[in-house]
């Protein structure tokens, strides 16, 4: 039976790559969310919040993947 750890690449290189992408997602998420400070447009507000939250969530997922999952594999 295939272990779930074998389904995705693991090891230091994969960890670094995923972390790098995660950090980029975090920075974009923070910048997008900061847009809420400067807009009063309902449409932008409605778009900014879920997109920013999604990017932040992707960054956190990248951390979970790289530091917890990949290392465990």
């Amino acid at each position: 039976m295939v272990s779930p750890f074998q389904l995705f690449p693991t090891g230091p290189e994969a960890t670094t790559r995923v972390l790098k992408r995660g950090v980029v997602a975090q920075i974009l998420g923070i910048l997008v969310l900061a847009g809420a400070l400067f807009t009063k447009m309902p449409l932008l507000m409605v778009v900014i919040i879920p997109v920013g939250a999604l990017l932040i969530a992707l960054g956190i997922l990248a951390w979970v993947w790289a530091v917890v999952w990949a290392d465990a594999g």
Partner: protein
Amino acid sequence: MSVIILAVFAAVMILLLVGLTRALKSPSTGFARSFAVVAMVLLPSVWLLAMLVYADSEMKKVSFCTSCHEMKPYGESLHVDDDESLSASHYQNNRVDKTKACYVCHTEPGLLGYMDAKLRGLHDVRVHYFGKAPEELELVAPYDNAVCLKCHGEAKSFLEGGGHQYPDTLIDALKAGEMSCLDCHDLAHHLED
């Protein structure tokens, strides 16, 4: 308030960059891992939470509701000199928080009421930008007495005054939703031509 949020934002960015360089040089060391937790999980989560709270408070403001031209007459009706108008009398006599008067009187109590208000808001945004608002606006559902009763329900002025005892079944009928508060208090907004 915005300055504090921006300061937190700058701190988050710096920590993320430090976390990035540290974590990518030696991702398995304890220091890099700790930094990664702070930079990639804790601070972004705090930032996200802060921005959700900020956006939520902004979206409750009268100025936000009236930023769409369809709502402008309703915003202006808050300032009309007419004591019969529910919105004007509540707004001008501080019976509601003036900064979020629309939200207070158009949101049913509880978490479900909050969720319902958000969904209706999304619908309104969609119609404003991608649809066509009708000439005469109407509530999407009958006005729920619970909105009035969340403030007035236990008030002495409501229970013992204002003619709410005649007939003696009136208060029960209002609480059960068999009658609408607007059946008698029928001028919600005094719209000027």
